[in-house]
């Protein structure tokens, strides 16, 4: 009896003992290192720069922590593990953007020249339950509203969810209106895209005409930032091109030779485009993919003239959003990440030809997505939104309209794409949401209200870890 009591007491003691310190901070530090270990091992300066970039604000931190969001939603003990009453087996394998948020919305010019709106970052695209995307989008608007110092962050999170469910209903009933340039913000985005695209502004930014030839420009297109978090400091690139090394040039030439095979229509590639006129490594782009190798390639255009050259972006792509424990049949629906990103981009955008030069190429285990760097492709930028709000050009109502439209764009993307099991998702989505549209909106908003404060607190934890351990986050190697 005494032995039994002793054993029970020991087990009780073990079960009761609490982990020391802040377990959430320990988890955050470890998972951020694990998610970025590939960069910390292969390109430590860029990995450190990525963490520094994430520290610049709550929104950049949010953008760099998709892995933490995924774990929180799907893993046992996850802080965002809030059950959904509106997900069914038929909506658990929907094609997902993976990381939809306000700054991943942008413009595209289709093969026929039409400018359209859609999501523009498919690095995390995958198959999974649709509410993973919906919650991420709503959360993104909430976080953006905080960053923009808006009065009612929840209003915009709710607008995004409401736009989503309304659009699913409208699509299901066949009454959906097309999302084009409604609202001032997206209207402005399209207008600027048309202007800058026509002006070939990308050539002005990243190339120069020297001695009658167009060449890559190497240097800072935008001045870098001096990042400091005492006692740690570094120079942070924001928009900079570096010359490609000899080995990089050889590898990129191979990639560019293989990429045309993956174009939707190989005829979209003008004759003469096989002539590579310049290569440079781009630094300072993105947040989640800040440390990923990214290159710009200057190709000969349709004519020998200097004004119709092509500028492509080649970006190495890594694994998408990991949803812990999610069983997919098959588990590996794509051969590699390049194929995944391109296939799902074509599936999820308003048309498969939103970027006629979109393709991918592989070099061993490294896969690259290739896209047109044209300024017809223009994305929303929170800094520009802040400027416009500060100047009084836009107001909080415009942000709410934007959130509604973003929700509708997401709904269109989901509904029109095929699920992993084959059928188009719209009927399943409509059935899952059913008549309880308000219920899904309320459920999404409740999640955002619960989880956004955790993200805010995590951001402070992240800053504490940065201060204590520096921009390697204590990674020992």
């Amino acid at each position, binding site marked *: 009896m005494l032995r039994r009591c002793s054993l029970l007491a020991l087990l009780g003691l*073990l*079960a009761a*003992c609490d*982990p*020391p*310190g*802040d*377990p959430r901070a*320990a*988890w955050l*530090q*470890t998972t951020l*290192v*694990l998610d970025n270990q590939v960069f910390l091992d292969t390109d430590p300066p860029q990995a450190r720069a990525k963490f520094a970039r994430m520290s610049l604000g709550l929104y950049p931190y949010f953008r760099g922590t998709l892995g933490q969001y995924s774990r929180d*939603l*799907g*893993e*046992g*003990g996850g802080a965002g*593990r*809030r*059950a*959904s009453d509106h*997900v*069914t*087996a*038929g909506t*658990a*394998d929907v094609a997902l953007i993976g990381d939809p948020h306000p700054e991943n919305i942008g413009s595209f010019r289709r093969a026929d020249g039409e400018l359209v709106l859609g999501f523009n970052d498919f690095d995390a695209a*995958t198959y*999974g*339950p649709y509410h993973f995307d919906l919650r991420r989008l709503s959360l993104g608007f909430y976080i953006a509203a905080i960053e923009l110092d808006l009065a009612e962050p929840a209003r915009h999170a709710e607008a995004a969810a409401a736009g989503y469910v309304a659009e699913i209903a409208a699509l299901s009933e066949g009454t959906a209106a097309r999302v084009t340039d409604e609202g001032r913000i997206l209207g402005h985005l399209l207008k600027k895209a048309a202007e800058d695209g026509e002006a070939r502004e990308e050539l002005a930014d990243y190339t120069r005409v020297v001695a009658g030839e167009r060449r890559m420009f190497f240097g800072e297109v935008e001045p870098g930032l001096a990042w400091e978090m005492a006692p740690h400091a570094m120079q942070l690139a924001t928009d900079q091109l570096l010359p490609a090394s000899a080995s990089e040039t050889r590898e990129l030439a191979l990639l560019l030779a293989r990429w045309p095979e993956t174009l939707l229509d190989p005829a979209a590639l003008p004759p003469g485009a096989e002539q590579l006129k310049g290569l440079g490594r781009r630094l300072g782009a993105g947040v989640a993919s800040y440390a990923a190798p990214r290159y710009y390639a200057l190709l000969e255009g349709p004519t020998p003239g200097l004004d119709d050259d092509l500028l492509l972006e080649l970006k190495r792509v*890594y*694994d*998408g959003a*990991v*949803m*812990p*424990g*999610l*069983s997919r*049949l*098959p*588990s*590996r629906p794509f*051969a*590699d*990440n390049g194929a995944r990103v391109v296939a799902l981009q074509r599936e999820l955008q308003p048309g498969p030809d939103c970027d006629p030069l979109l393709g991918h190429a592989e070099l*061993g*285990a490294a896969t690259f997505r290739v896209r047109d760097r044209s300024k017809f492709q223009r994305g929303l930028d929170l800094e520009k939104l802040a400027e416009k709000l500060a100047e009084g050009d836009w107001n909080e109502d415009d942000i709410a309209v934007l959130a509604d439209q973003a929700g509708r764009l997401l709904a269109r993307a989901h509904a029109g794409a095929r699920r992993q*099991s*084959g*059928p188009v998702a719209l009927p*399943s989505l409509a059935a899952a949401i059913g008549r309880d549209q308000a219920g899904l909106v309320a459920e999404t908003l409740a999640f955002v209200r619960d989880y956004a404060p955790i993200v805010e607190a995590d951001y402070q934890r992240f800053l504490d*870890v940065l201060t*204590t351990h520096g921009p390697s986050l*204590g*990674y*020992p*190697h």
Partner: protein
Amino acid sequence: MPLTTPGLALLLALRQSPEVPQEPPPSPPDPVTPQERVAPPPADSPTTDHSPQADDSPPAPPRAASAAPADPPLSPEERAALRRAARRELLLDPEEVLQNQWPAAPYCNLDPRGKDACLTLDSELFAGFRRSAQAGGRKLSEFALDRAELGTQLWWRPHWRLDTGVATRIEAVRSAGPQSLIGIDGNSLVMRLGQAYGHAAAHVGPISIGLRGGLIPERWLEQVEKGHDTRGVEALASERALMFDRADLGATLTISGWKGRVELDASFTNGEGRAQQELNRGKNTTLILSVRPLRRRLPGGPLALAIHGLYRDGSYGLALAGAAGRNHRVAAALTLQSPWAFAGAEYVRALGFNARPDLVSDALGAWASAYLFRNYLGIMASYAHIRQDVATPGTRVDVVTAGLFGDVFGYRLRNRRRVRLHAGYQYEGYGAAAGPVPGAPEAATTHRFMLQLTAQGLFRLL
């Protein structure tokens, strides 16, 4: 070629028999079985004893039965051939041993007087065909390779009280993770080091003290799987839930008494497992106590009842303010092995899991397998109940597996070669708040029909 025990007994009998004349006998000797040459061990003896003796002097070879001197003499060639054949035998008595007996005894029949060595090669393969179905019209048929391993063990006995050796094991893994697309040449199966360690065992009376160092096997799985005969179709619940990795970098000290009746393991490892380097200064410290109160030698194989308990003080991940996140384990298991049936139960509680120091998760597993038609046709069933988060109701995952299996070679030869085919069904169900999609358990619920092959072989090369 003689089998394990008889061959070994023959070798020992030959060692103490007088030298014979050089001339061949006038007529071939009558066949004599090893059992006739050597007195059988006592019925309650835990093992055929080829490990060093308890006293201070090198062991004397066992006495031959009284009939042995009357046997016709053998030629030197015959003696040499028999000696070579016997040396190829493994110390894997079908009546006694299921898994390795380290540190009590080596795999091989090393010369009990010392100055002897052996080299073994073993291989293990789990492969199968399965058809999975999930709600929402999601179905998939696929062939899968769950395990392909090749291992080698070099044993050297420098002194009759000391066994040493080196073990290496390579295993096939998918080069991309479960949800990853970054692999080698797509998602090739590649070989990696699964285990690699040096080991030594000293024998003092009834006690053996063993030490392993390197990429060492997880002792909990090694011990509990001695009472789990259907690993080829389903892992232990704790392994399925990833509460234990099969190997880790570190060292294990094992004290084994009375041929494994009582064993105490103390392990000191990184805690990050096979696929990750050390991320913090803390080390996992694990204590495992195994007691086998019932252990009998039976003609068809051993009967053993084992009780295991574990406590692990573990850490995982980066050290925040000097302390890495906790990753403790408390576990208990009860296993039964016999020639007719295997059964067991296991409970593991994880205090800190998935890099979340504050998460408490647990796993309860039970299994049973029995022969319907000895020793070739059997039935198996297992159940695993995993709570992803003990603090949150409805986070359970239940896995039920049931099936039939057939052996090609029979149970007595299981240690040396096994070809087993399973045909079964598996149900994987999720609680309302469990799984990757909380609130939609049907999204992850899976029904699976399986045809699974287990193939194992063990050979002595030297």
